[in-house]
């Protein structure tokens, strides 16, 4: 899906199925997807099947799946939310990177420790 000089044949919006927003809770691009044990119904689309295959060996983030599927993240989110809703995937929100420690808290801790003496 390289944007070459010609017109690309299959656009990414095809996976949205005509919806304007994913049905279900919004997924972050760093949300981690984990395959569950449920078996896919036979009428599963090839792109959903492919996503599940990707996750067979282990978990991946949405953005990594998007790269493997050569789809934009926004389109991959549609696929993932559908599979999560159907119970074929687990989605885990991204681990928030720990923020800086509040200075006042440390100071109060220090005061408390000193007062122990």
């Amino acid at each position: 899906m390289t944007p070459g000089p010609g017109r690309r044949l299959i656009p990414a919006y095809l996976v949205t199925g005509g919806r304007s927003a994913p049905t279900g809770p919004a997924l972050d691009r760093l949300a981690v997807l984990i395959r569950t044990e449920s078996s896919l119904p036979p009428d599963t689309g090839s792109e959903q099947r492919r996503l599940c295959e990707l996750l067979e060996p282990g978990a991946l983030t949405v953005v990594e799946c998007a790269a493997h599927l050569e789809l934009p993240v926004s389109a991959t989110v549609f696929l993932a939310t559908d599979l999560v809703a159907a119970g074929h995937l687990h989605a885990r929100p991204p681990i928030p990177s720990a923020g800086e420690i509040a200075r006042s808290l440390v100071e109060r801790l220090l005061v408390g420790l000193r007062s122990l003496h």
Partner: protein
Amino acid sequence: MLGWIVALVAVAVATSSAVRTYQARREAYGASARAELNERQAKAAEARTLALTEEIRQLARRRIPAAATALSHRTAPVPGLREAAGIDGEAARLLGEAVQAARTAVLEERGRVDAAARSAMRGTSAKIQSLLNQSQHLLHELQHEYDDPRILQLDFRNELALRRTQATAVLCDAWPGLARQNSSLVEVVLGAQSRVPGYERIKVANHLRQERLALVARAAEPLAIALAELLANATAYSHPDTEVPVTVQQTAGRGALILVDDAGIGMDDDALERARTLLSGPSEVLLTELGDPPRTGFAVVGRLIARYGFSCHIESSPYGGMRTILRIPAHLLTVMDDDRALSVLAPKPVHARGTGAPEPSGPQDPAATTGPVGHLPAEPVAPTSAEPAEPAGRAPAAEAEAPPAELPTRRRRARRTDSPEPSTTRPQTVEEPTLRTPEQAGAAWAALQEGTLSGRKAPGPPAQAPPAASPSDDLGDDET
């Protein structure tokens, strides 16, 4: 004696006078007859002139306008001579010629005007097309940069506009506007699907024996345009709740067929006849014949058929609406190079199950062994459907045997997360996972690690690498 002579003379005189009067009377009679004849001839000539005038009036007021109308409305009646006996053959022939000459003049002028309109439209649509192509590239880049789903919608609107413009251009004898490489047939079908409002109702079933069957470069885009028009008809003329099944299959003669069915309102005989005429690939389609608003679909397909050598047939569908069959001859087909991967969106061939006859699976096997790439995608499908069915179907007793059989780490973890659902039957096993799942433990430790890390390099912004790396890290930890 004298008396005899006198009598004889008198008889002679009487006879001669009788003869003379007879002759005079005959002459008078002839003269009157001639006069009568002249008079009659004059009357006839007058009547002829009158008839001719009437015919000319008929020609000017009725026949020529009607003949001109009939050029665009085939069913409109064209009146003939008022009374064929009233004028002689020569005049009638000349009057007929006048009608014919008027027809020819109108036709020529119409062709000229139409050609001018087409060329104007062609220029405009080529310009719009190139602009839309540029915005498509921009949208494509934006999609990969930002996660807003509205960009996808925008891309779709752009694609719809592009289809309209391209169809208009094709109708105006332009070339499709871009060249493609050899393109997978299924991908071309999906490409056509993506250009149609209501594309989500179109269900593509891939019944190809060769998965990598492709269209030769020059036919790829034309076929996409033609199929998009057929699909647009199918979706536009059927209820929004119904599906539009599309079947892609190979024929016995190395060609391919694309069937488009709809459960729509169907077509009446006139419309069907018009469609068939257009689909037969006429050498010229006039813009003025498309109606108002213009119905371009079949005309566009017809233009492409005339130029690229595929064919299209339309009939009543078993689904209730219409079925259009696009037939692609063998010389427009090829097989894709193995180094080009198919799109993830392309549906996999459905052989073996359902309607697939046992015959297609026979030829398919050698194809799969010769082409390794053709075999690969089929393989994972079978395990995924078979594998998870096993743990789901079996009793809990099987769980004990399963882990040693396969490399276990992911499965074990996954089973624990899975087990809370059937928990009601086995309360004691549920206790363990509810305490803390490996993910939670991993997440907690990873968060702690990251916290200390980011705490140490104090002013540094929260780098993007740690969160991205952390999931795989914590998975790695889980396995021990």
